[in-house]
C-alpha cells in the first residue's frame, strides 16, 4: 500500500517530509508510549499517536517508520518539525481521534492484506 493512498483516503495533512510520501506502507501500530513503539513497531509501519514531542522523530527514525500520524489535531512542537525535516520523517496530522483513524486505516490496509 502506497502512503499517498492513505494520505488521500484519510484526508491527512502533510506536516513534514513531503518528499517521502510515496513510500510503501507495510502495516500500522498505534501507541503513545515511545518505548512500546520502539519495541513493537516495524520498518515501513505507519504510527498513530497523540504525542507531539520531538522524541517521536527519533523513534520513527530508529524504526524506519513510513509516517507518523498525529491525531486529535495535535500541533507538533517546533523542534519536532525541524527534526522531521532533517531526518526526512513524514509527519501527518488529522483532527480525528486515534480510534476512528485506526478504524479507517485498518479497513484500507485489510483490503490490501498488510494488516
Amino acid at each position, binding site marked *: 500500500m502506497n502512503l499517498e493512498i492513505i494520505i488521500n483516503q484519510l484526508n491527512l495533512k502533510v506536516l513534514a517530509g513531503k518528499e517521502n510520501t510515496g513510500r510503501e506502507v507495510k502495516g500500522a501500530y498505534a501507541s503513545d*508510549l*515511545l*518505548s512500546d513503539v520502539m*519495541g513493537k513497531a516495524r520498518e515501513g509501519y505507519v504510527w498513530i499517536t497523540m504525542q507531539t*514531542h520531538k522524541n517521536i522523530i*527519533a523513534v520513527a*527514525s*530508529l524504526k524506519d517508520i513510513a509516517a507518523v500520524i498525529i491525531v486529535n489535531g495535535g500541533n507538533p512542537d517546533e523542534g519536532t518539525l525541524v527534526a522531521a525535516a532533517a*531526518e526526512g520523517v513524514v509527519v501527518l496530522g488529522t483532527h480525528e481521534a486515534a480510534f476512528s483513524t485506526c478504524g479507517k486505516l485498518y479497513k484500507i490496509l485489510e483490503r490490501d492484506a498488510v494488516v
Partner: protein
Amino acid sequence: MQWFKADLHIHTVLSPCGGLDMSPVSIIKQAVLKGLDFIAITDHNSTRHCRLAQEIGRKHGITVLAGAEVNTKEEIHCLTFFEDMDKASKFQQYIDENLMFIENKPEIFGYQLIVDEDENILEEEVRMLGAAMNTSIDEISEAVAALDGIFIPAHINRLHNSVYSQLGFLPPSAHIDAVEVSPVADYMKFLEEHPETGRFCHVNNSDSHHIERIGLVTTEYYMEKPDFNEFRMAIRNENGRKVRSI
C-alpha cells in the same frame, strides 16, 4: 547548621542526550566554579559514572550523591539517590535486569560514553539508556526504598515524561520522598491546579545536559553538612533541617 546549595539533577556524557563536554571532571570543576556545595550525578537509567564523579568530587571538596534518573514503564522520569556506591551498584543490577534492550544508534540518540578522570573513553554503552524499564513507578520506588534510597519524581510539571503528563496524578501507592518541579513551566498555576503536591517537599534542579547549565537552577538545604542522610532529613523537614526552593 547552615544553608548548602545543591544541583541534584546532572547528566554526564553517558546519557544519550548529554553533551560531549559532560565528563565527570568538567562537571565537578563547573560545580565548584558555580559555588555549589553538593551535586548529584543522575544519568538516564545508569549509575555507572557516579563512582568516578564522587572520587573527583572528594579531591575538589564537593559532595557528589550517587543516583540515576530512571524511566518507568509508564515513561515517567524519576530521580533516585543512594547512600553509597554499594547500594547504587545494587540498584544498577536492578536496572540491568529490567531495562528494555534496544541497541543505541548514536547518530540518532547521541553517544553514551564512560570516560576516566583524564576524559579518555573507556567504554561505549550499547543499550539505549533512554528506553523505559519494564517495571512500574510503584515497583521501582519500592526497589529504591528497599535499598534505603530516595525517590523523587522528576520535573512533575513538564508536559512530557512527567508523572502528570503520563498518569495525571501522583500515584498514592508509590514511595515518594519529594517532587522535583521545573521552573521553566508556570509553577504558580501548577500549584493552584495540583495542591495535592503540597504534601511533598518541592526541589528544583538544572537537569543539565550541557556544562553551562550546571547550577543555573538550584535548591538550598539547611543542615549540618552536605551528605545523603542530612539531605533526606531536609526533604522530610526533620530535626530542624529544611529546604528553600523557588
